Every structure is written in C-alpha cells, then in structure tokens.
C-alpha cells in the first residue's frame, strides 16, 4: 500500500484539473461580459511577533491580525500559558464572495527559568544630597537605571524659597514589572547669608564632603572587583611583555584611590567609626594606638598569600586588619622584593622563597585581587550606610554630640598626620623613643613612598572642612579673624609640600628621614623644626614645625572658639 501514497496527489490533481477545465468552459459560455467572479481569498497579516513567545504563567495577549480587504478577522486556538508548549492561533477572514483567507501564529509558551525578577537599579546623576541656594532654581540632574528603563522623578516637594531639606523621589519599573527600590535625593536649600550654626556646618560637612568623599571612594574602588581592573590586568600579564606596564598601571590606580582615602581619613566618624573603626580599617589600616603605630604586617600578609593560594575558601573578610585593606595591597603591589618578610620559624612560608619569581608574583596577585575586591565592597558599604544613616546623624536633637564627633575627627591631623606620619619619624615627637634618632618604622605608605602626598591630602581636606563654615563659626567668638590665620597655617603646610615635591619630585619621606643619621643632624632637625619659617637643609623638619603650628592652634584656639573639647579623655579626670 505504502508505495502508492506518493501517487495520490498526482491523481487528485489530474482529476481536479479534468473536472475544473470542464466547468470553466461551461461558464464562459454563459456570459462573457460579466466580470470574472471573485475567487481571491483575503490575505491576512499577523500583527506582532510570529512566532510569539510567552513566559509560563504570564498572561498571553494576542496581537491579532488584519485582513487586506478589511474583513473581520476571527481567530481560533487557545494558548495555555500554564503549560509549556507550542500553540497555534489560526486567523481567518471571509470576504463577501465567500473566499476565506487564513493565517496562523505560533505561540511558544516557554519556561525560561526564574525569569526577569531582577528589579532595575537606579543611579542618580549629580550630587546627593544636593545643595541649592535660597531662591535659586533646582536643576534636576536626573537618574538612570542599569537596564535602561526610564526613571520617573517626583521633585514636587522641592521649594527653593524655604530654607529646609527636601526629598526628590526616583522610581522605575522594568518590562517584567519589576519595581526598582525608590531612590531619594536630599535637596538642601540653604541661605548663604545666614549665620553658621553647629547644625548648618555639620550638615554642610556631611553633605558636601563626607558623603561625596565616600561616594568617590566607592566609585573609584568599584572596578577593583571586576575582571577588568588594573590589578586583574596586571595579574593576567605576569610573565608577558606587558607585565611592567600593567603593574605600573595597577600602582597608579592604587595611588589615585589612596588620595581619596587620605581625604576620608580626616572624617573618621559616624558609620566609618562604628565598632572600633571596623569599616574604616577594612578599607585602610594605619593608626597610632598606645604610642605604637599599627599598620600592615608584611609577614602576616606573606602568610595570607600562601593561605589564600592553598585554600580556595580563603576569606579576606575573615582576616585581621593588618593583612588586608589598602595597606596590605600597597605591600603586595609596591614591594619588589619577592622574598617573605617573616622570621625563620614561621613554617607557613618556609617554602616560599624557593618558588620562582613568576609563581610568587602570581600568588601575591591572587591575594591582591581578593583584597581589592574586599576594599571595594567595604568602601561601598561605608558609602551606603552613610547615606542610610545621614538623617539620623544630623538629628538636631543630637547636634552637640555629632558636631563634636566631627571636630574630634579633625584631630586625626594631630595624632596621625603630625605625630605618627611626620614628627614621630623625624624623631621630634615623643612618640619616637628618646633613645632613637628617628623612627622610620612609623612612616605611612613606605612601599609606595607617597607619605608626603598623604600629609598634603590630609591638610587639604582639613582646610576644606574648616572652610565649610567652621571658620565662620569660630570667628563669631574669636577676637579677630583667627580663622584666616588658621587657614594660613594649613596653607603653609600644603605649599611647603608642593614646593618640596616640585623641587625634588622623587625625594620621599623615607629618604629624607634616612638623612637624619647623626646627633648633629638631629640637632639641625630640631632647629629647623623650631623655626619652620626659616629655610633649612632638612626641609622635612621645617615641615614638621609647620604642621605643629597647625596642631597648636587646633588644640587651643580651635577648641576654644568652637566651644568643643579635646577628643582624648572625654570623661576627663576631675580632681
């Protein structure tokens, strides 16, 4: 039987042709002037996708079809969106002549896994909080989402004719119906002519310095987590011709991040200071505590390199502060000596020095990537938690406490910038024991040799914070324009470093401290320190004197005029 099947259509065509031919001859014979009868079926065009795809359990809405003769198109066929499968919708239309045209659409009900349940993320353009001067126009800087949806902006609450704080709300929904977490931009309408209050100054410092600095830090460090980061590029280049240039790029990236870190060092309070500075220490670890300077432990980091290589479960987030953060990263990126720095009895690194240079670089790189990732995460966390706690921090009912947290933060310049970073190393500050001429072990950033740059960044940030209204506030009780003279003292530090760097760009603090090598040098240093305005050979010691001029005023005039207290021993010791 089967072999006849192919013949069936042939037979049918033959039969139909014979019969039809006969019929045609017959009608022509009836009336040759009549128009030919309409035998053309309507042509149906399916609108929208064909085949169409619909996600399981979602609603299928048919896009329908049209007919070229304008006839009504009916459709048949069901789509069960509860069941994965191919469904057919048939469209048909019949014209007046009774010709029926049909078309079909295939509808595929698919289950593409979890589906698009990811809400879009809104990112604001411009500043948040944003400051607008009284009666100026609020300019909407807009926002974007990561998946390109348009963002709805409700800025109706903003009234720039009132000094107050307003909220602009940003929202977005994607095609899958996922709603983005709304983002709020705080718009502070300020009156520049109004006299400064503790609250206005604190608000300005938080909104215009602290949060933007952490935002900048988060932005700068975010790429560290990605596979395209300069460190990742360096890691992939080890052993290739590009290695040196990629390493240089990774170092430059570190230095650029470090500049921002040094800005944030001047405002370690609020979220950055919670839990004994835990968040801040995860981003950057260098501190003076009980007359000792704590920073990266190179041996602990060496051991961590070995552990991280051996154990793919190694967690930077579980390691201690002295083997992570920008500090450990500096050691791993800038220290060209690949040997470990541990004592001979540290068994974890006993095989290290026998490894090839490439192996050791690769292993260090492995930990560097993890640390970089951790830094990025924590930098983002500080920024996010600061945004979340900003209103609480600026609670007017707590402004006394919070203002002092901010001014206490500036004493970083006394305890760290002056004593630990500069005057301790040159042997002037009591932090450096009497029996030592100098204390190079205190020097910050000794591998990148950016210590002077750091001090400059601290001074610039101190000046910027002071300029945010602390100057006006202080001058309200100062007998003369003390604020200007204080700014002059800070500027003297900044200018001195700029001058030192332009005169001898590569002369780092490490090298300058090394030049104080005898009792005579030490005496010369002391005299340069005592008369910092006079040009001296040991410019670093003159700089020490200039920095002390700032901290002298910080400890007395600053706290007196601003009505705050020295940070140490807040409880005091009354007699």
């Amino acid at each position, binding site marked *: 039987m089967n072999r006849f099947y192919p013949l069936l259509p042939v037979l049918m065509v033959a039969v139909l042709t014979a019969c039809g031919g006969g019929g045609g001859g017959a009608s022509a014979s009836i009336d040759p002037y009549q128009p030919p009868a309409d035998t053309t079926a309507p042509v149906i065009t399916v609108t929208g996708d064909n085949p169409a795809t619909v996600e399981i359990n979602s609603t299928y809405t048919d896009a329908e079809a049209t007919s070229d003769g304008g006839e009504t198109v009916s459709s048949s066929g069901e789509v069960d969106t509860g069941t994965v499968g191919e469904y057919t919708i048939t469209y048909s239309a019949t014209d007046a002549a009774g010709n029926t045209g049909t078309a079909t659409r295939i509808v595929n009900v698919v289950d593409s896994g979890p589906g698009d349940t990811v809400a879009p993320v809104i990112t604001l353009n411009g500043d948040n909080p944003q400051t607008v001067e009284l009666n100026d126009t609020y300019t909407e800087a807009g926002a974007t989402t990561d998946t390109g949806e348009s963002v709805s902006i409700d800025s109706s609450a903003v009234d720039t004719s009132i000094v107050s704080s307003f909220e602009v709300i940003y929202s977005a929904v994607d095609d899958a119906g996922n709603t983005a977490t709304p983002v709020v931009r705080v718009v502070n309408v300020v009156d520049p002519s109004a006299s400064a209050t503790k609250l206005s100054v604190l608000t300005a410092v938080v909104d215009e310095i602290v949060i933007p600095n952490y935002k900048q830090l988060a932005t700068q460090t975010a790429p560290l987590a990605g596979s395209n980061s300069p460190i990742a590029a360096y890691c992939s280049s080890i052993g290739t011709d590009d290695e040196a240039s990629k390493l240089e790029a990774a170092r430059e990236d570190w230095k650029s991040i470090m500049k921002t870190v040094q800005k944030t060092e001047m405002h370690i309070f609020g979220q950055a200071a919670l839990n004994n500075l835990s968040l801040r220490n995860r981003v950057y670890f260098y501190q003076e505590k009980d007359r000792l300077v704590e920073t990266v432990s190179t041996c602990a980091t060496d051991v961590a390199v070995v552990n991280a290589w051996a154990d793919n479960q190694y967690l930077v987030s579980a390691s201690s502060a002295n083997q992570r953060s920008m500090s450990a990263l500096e050691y791993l990126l800038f220290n060209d000596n690949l040997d470990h720095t541990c004592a001979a009895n540290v068994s974890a690194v006993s095989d290290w020095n026998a490894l090839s240079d490439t192996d050791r670089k690769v292993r260090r790189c492995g930990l560097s990537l993890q640390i970089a990732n951790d830094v990025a995460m924590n930098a983002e966390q500080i920024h996010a938690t600061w945004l979340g706690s900003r209103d609480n921090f600026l609670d007017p009912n*707590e402004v*006394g*406490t*919070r203002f*002092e947290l901010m001014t206490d933060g500036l004493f970083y310049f006394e305890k760290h910038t002056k004593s630990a970073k500069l005057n301790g190393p040159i042997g002037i500050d009591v932090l450096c024991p009497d029996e030592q001429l100098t204390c190079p072990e205190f020097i910050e950033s000794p591998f990148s040799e950016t210590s002077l740059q750091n001090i400059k960044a601290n001074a610039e940030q101190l000046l910027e914070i002071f300029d945010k209204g602390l100057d006006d506030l202080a001058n309200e009780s100062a007998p003369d324009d003390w604020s200007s003279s204080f700014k002059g003292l800070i500027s003297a530090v900044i200018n001195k470093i700029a001058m030192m760097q332009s005169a001898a760009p590569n002369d780092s603090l490490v090298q300058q401290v090394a030049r104080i090598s005898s009792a005579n040098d030490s005496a010369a240093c002391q005299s340069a320190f005592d008369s910092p305005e006079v040009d001296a050979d040991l410019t670093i010691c003159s700089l020490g004197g200039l920095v*002390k001029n700032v901290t002298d005023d910080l400890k*007395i005039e600053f706290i007196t005029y601003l009505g705050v207290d020295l940070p140490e021993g807040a*409880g005091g010791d009354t007699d």
Partner: protein
Amino acid sequence: MLGEIPIKQLKNALGCLSLAASSLIIAADLSDAQIKEVLIIGTKEEKQNLSGSGFQISNADLGKHGYTDLNQIVSSVPGVYVREEDGFGLRPNIGIRGATSDRSQKITIMEDGVLIAPAPYSAPAAYYITNPSRLYALEVLKGPSAIQSGPHTVGGTINLVTRPVPKEDVAELDLIAGSDGYKKIAGTVGYNFDSVGILLEGFRYGSDGFKELDSGEDTGFVRNDINVKLRWVPQSELPQTLMIKAGFADEDADETYLGLTDSDFSENPHRRYPASQLDRFQSEHKQLHMHHSVALSSDMDLKTKIYYNEYHRSWNKFDGFMDGPKAQDVLAEPTAYTSAYRVLQGLQDSNVGDFTDLTIDVTDNDREYTSHGIQFNINKRFALVGLDHTLKVGIRYHEDDVRRRHQTRSYLMRSGAMLSDGLARPFKTNNYAHTKAYALSISDDITWSDWTLNLGVRHEDIEGSVNNKLLDVITENSQSITAPGLGLHRQLTEKMSLLAGVYVGFSPSGPGKSGAESEESINIEYGVRYDDGQFSGEIIAFESDYDNLLGRCRASDSDCQVGQEFSGGNVEVSGVEVFGQFQRSLSGGVILASQLNYTFSESKFKGAFFSQFSQWGLVEKGDELPYIPRHAGRWQVGLETDIWAIDVALKYQHGMREVPGSGQIADDLHTDSLTTLDASLTWFVNEQMDLRVLTRNLTDETAIVSHRPYGARPNFPRTLMAQMKYRF
C-alpha cells in the same frame, strides 16, 4: 562648745561678744598660754601692732550659730571668698584676695600652727580640713605677715585653733537635731592630774542630705571624729609645756560632682540625676602632733612642733561618659545632646552600638596622702640702738606625698539603674608624687615710738618628684624661692592707726612641674584702724599683682616649649575690705552688739592668653577672673542677757563669673547673687544647760552657687536645728 571654760569666763566672753579682730575682745579667750602657742597671729598685744591684716574669730563667736561649715565661718572675714559646693562645707573652697578658691589649694591651711592639708606641697587641694566642730578659734592672716607661714602666701593663711585642754575638769554633751535628718552628738571630757591634763573629744554628725535622688536613696553623710590631747607642764627650771594630740576622723558621704541643667534646677534645685546614684566619698584621717614650748629666757621662747598626718580617701563619682560628650556640655545645652541628657536622668538606656555609647564613667579617685615634718619657732625680744625688736625665726622641714590611683569603672544605664559593663578599664591617673621642703622665715618687728616696722623674708627650698606609673616616667623639679615683705604700722592716736605693707607672695608649682608654673604675686595693702573700746573697725585697700598664673603650655602638651606661652598669665586683683563692730549695754542688762564686714573686689587679666584650665580657657585682656564676687558682705546683730540671746546674720554674695569676661555677668556662665539670713535663739537655762534653736537660710533662698564641675549646684536650703548643751 563653750562648756569647758568656767562659766564665769563664758559669761565674760559672751558678754563682750568677743567679736572678731577686736584685739580687746579676743584677748578674753586667746590669751590662754596653751592657745598662745598654737596661734600664728598671737595675742592682743601682738595683734595690735600687726603691720599686716590679721583676723581672729573667737570661740564665742564660733558657738553663736553652731556652725559646722567652715565656709560659713570664714564668710565673716573680709577679703575671704567662698565658693559653695555640697552645701555642708565638707570640702571647702576658700580663696583670699584673688587666690583661687578651688578646693582652698592656694591658701595655707593650718591646724594649731601645723600644715593640715593632706599634702600641702604635693597636692595642696584641701580634701581634709579640721572638722569645724573642733574649732576653738580661727585666724586669718593676710598681707605681709602671711610670709611667716607658707608655702602658699599669695593669698594668706587660715589657722584653725582646736580646743585646748581645759584647766578645770569638765564634761559636756552637745546634741543637735535638725532638718533632713541632721544630727550631731558630741561629748567632751577634760580632766587634770597634777601637771598632766587630758582632753577627750568624740563626735559624730551627719545628715540624710537635702538633695533628692529619683530613687529616693540618701544623699547625705556621716562623719566621726575622735581626738585626745595630753598636756604636761613639768616642774622644770625653764617654764615649758608639752602637748600631744592624736586624732582619728572618717567620713562616708554620698557626694557627687554632678549637678543639674539650669532648667531642671529651676524646677527642683535639690534633684540629683540617677547617673550619680553610685557616687560615694569615703575617707580616713589620722594625725599625731606634738607641740613643745619653752621659755628660754624672759625675752626668748622656743616652740617645737613635730607632726604626722595620714589621709586616705576614695571617691567614686560620676565622671562623664566613657564615649560621648562631656557632661558639662550636656548640662549646658541639653537639647543638643538629647540622648546623653536622657541617659543622665535614667530615662534612656546607654546605647551601645550607636555613634556614641553613652556608657557612664564612674571613676574612683583613690588617694593616699602622708604629711610630716618638724618646725621650730624662736621669738626673741631685744633692744638695739634704742629700738625694740621682736625677732621671729621659723624653720621647718616638711615632707609629703600623695599616691593617686584613679580607677575607672564603666556602667550602663538600664531602666534607671546603673549596671557594670564588666570591662576592665585602665587607670586614669596612677602616680606617686613626693615633696621635700625646707622653709626658713625671719621677721623682725622694730618699734620706735609709735612706729612699728616689720621686715621679713621667707625662703623655701622645695624638691618634688612625680612618678607617673602610667607612662613609667619620673619627673623631678626643684624650686628655690626667696620672698621678702615689709610692713609699716603707725599709731596715730590712741584710737587710730595706719598700716601699709608690701610683700612677695608665692605658691609653689606642684612636684614634677616646670618651675615657671609657680605663682608669684606682689601684694600691697594699706589702711586705717580704729578702736575706741566700744566701736572698732578698719578699712584696708589691697592690690595683688600675680605673675605666671597657669599659662598655655601644660604637661598634657607633649611637645611644647617650656615657658613659651606664659606671658599672658598676669592678673591684677584689687579691692577694699571694710570691717566694723560695736557693742553697747542697753537698759535691763541687755547688750546690743553688731558686726559688719564688706569686701569690694575687682580683678582683671592683664593680657590675652589661652589656658586649658577649664575655668579660664580663652582670656582676653581686661577680663575679670572667675569666682571672685564683686561685692560680698555680712551683717550680724545680736541682743543678749544672762538668760537669753538672739542673734541674726545677713549675708550677701554677689553673683560670680564662672568664666573670664568683661561684659555683663549675666551674659556668661555665672553664679547667682545670694542673700541669706541665719538666726539663732539661745536660752541659758542654768549653769548646766543651754538650749538653742538655729536656722540657716531662714527665708529659704535658692541660688546656683556653681556650675562646676558638672552643672548647676544649689546652696544650703532652709534648715532648722535644735541644740542642747549640757555640762556635768
């Protein structure tokens, strides 16, 4: 109080009301040989020609108001400033002519001519002072004569004279009961065996306290004091006396430094915040003094004193927050420190994990002191080229020390109660300070006709050391000071005399401190005295120029150049002291007596400077000093017969600046002006018994007497007391 004196003498003393500084009247009870040897001003004759201002308060006057508060007692002396603290005067703050009143540390405090502050050189703050109940008389020495005693001569000296061994046997009971559970029980027994006399005194006094903790606990104190005095007058060729005095005193007080916000003060000045609930002061004092005096000839005598004092105190007290704002800032501006303010009141729990923990710091300022020494005073009277000389030479070797262990403990406020957080905290202060001092003073009163010229000089060699056990650093210093003085007295008429004097005052810097931190002053005084037997008075102008008040560079500054910032610390204090008293017999055996004193003071800093001393801070040229009242005065009037006595005292102290300033006092932190009225009514029932009703602050005036250390503190409220004295 007066019981050991034979009743006849008592009546005599009361009869003439023995008002202070009247040399005629005080002679009645200060001429006793035994008293003489512990006086530093001396007797009638000696005081009459005193070229400086000296002041004496007799036993009778002390008894009048049943005072147990030294602050109250010294307020009747012109030129003396008092800053109240706890109300009971347990740890008085007394200053003289501009010397700071802070814990009486810039004046020399003596008991029977012996240094009595716990460690007058190493730690001069007077946490111990002789219980006022033991006082028999009181001397205040100002002006050039102040250089005879030291070491602190910028202001002057207060000498607390204790009750002598009575010549006749006596037994006395003194009972007082009063408001707020005030009670005192005192017993005195004096007995003589031939050449040996003994005096045994014991007393206990205390109060439940007038302040109110929200929890209702006591805020008062209890003090015990037991003393024995032995006097031996041997039958020897040279007349001599040996006196040995031994004493023990202790105290247990629920005392705090925490005050109130001004607004809480206006609602209830006696409230105490729950954050002070653990505060407690405990102390023990032991002393052994030996006094020997011998008349080497009719015109020369020698007094020798050997003394040993031991004092231990422990003061657990609220000292702010471990992590949080300063308590004084919170109390000054509570709306800017809402959480901290609520934690102080127990309305909110300490908030561990927030930006500030608000864990409460309770620090035990534990200190042990010893002070001992030997001193010789030789008085020699002689004539030389037609001039009468009275030469006084004093030599003293003194050592004292203080061991400080200030241990912090931390507490969490939880539903109004304070719970330890169990964390080990380091010492705030852990040190040992020691001082050795040799002192020599020479003074010569040269009398010619009606002129008396006093020339004097004081020299001290002081060696101090501090072992800072926190840093393991020992610092040492030595000071050598020679300070001269000159006084002139002229008897114009029998009743009127003129006096003038100038001297260099000095207050040594503490052990281990830079010598530049010692205070020096040039003090000038001049005035007129009048005494016609019925009325006496004096008007004295004074001016003190201080150098080197605490300057900029402090020990806490690790790297400052010694001496670089001291130029601003010059201060000028000047004023006028007026004193007058009179008495008159009215009909019916009634005696009317009245006494008035008034002190006008003005002060100014002579340069701008900064100090981390919290009372000063930013000082501008021309600013007035804190805690010196512009006007202070007291007026007392009494009527008395053999059967009854009534006595009223009105006291006024002008509001004081608490920070330097030059504008209206009200614009800055300041204390309130305060006028109080004290009154007493006595019935001399019979020879055995006196009954007395006393009130202090009869009109119940309320004022902020200080905002330091932490917040507003009240004065003593209206208190009613009933007293019975019985002599067996």
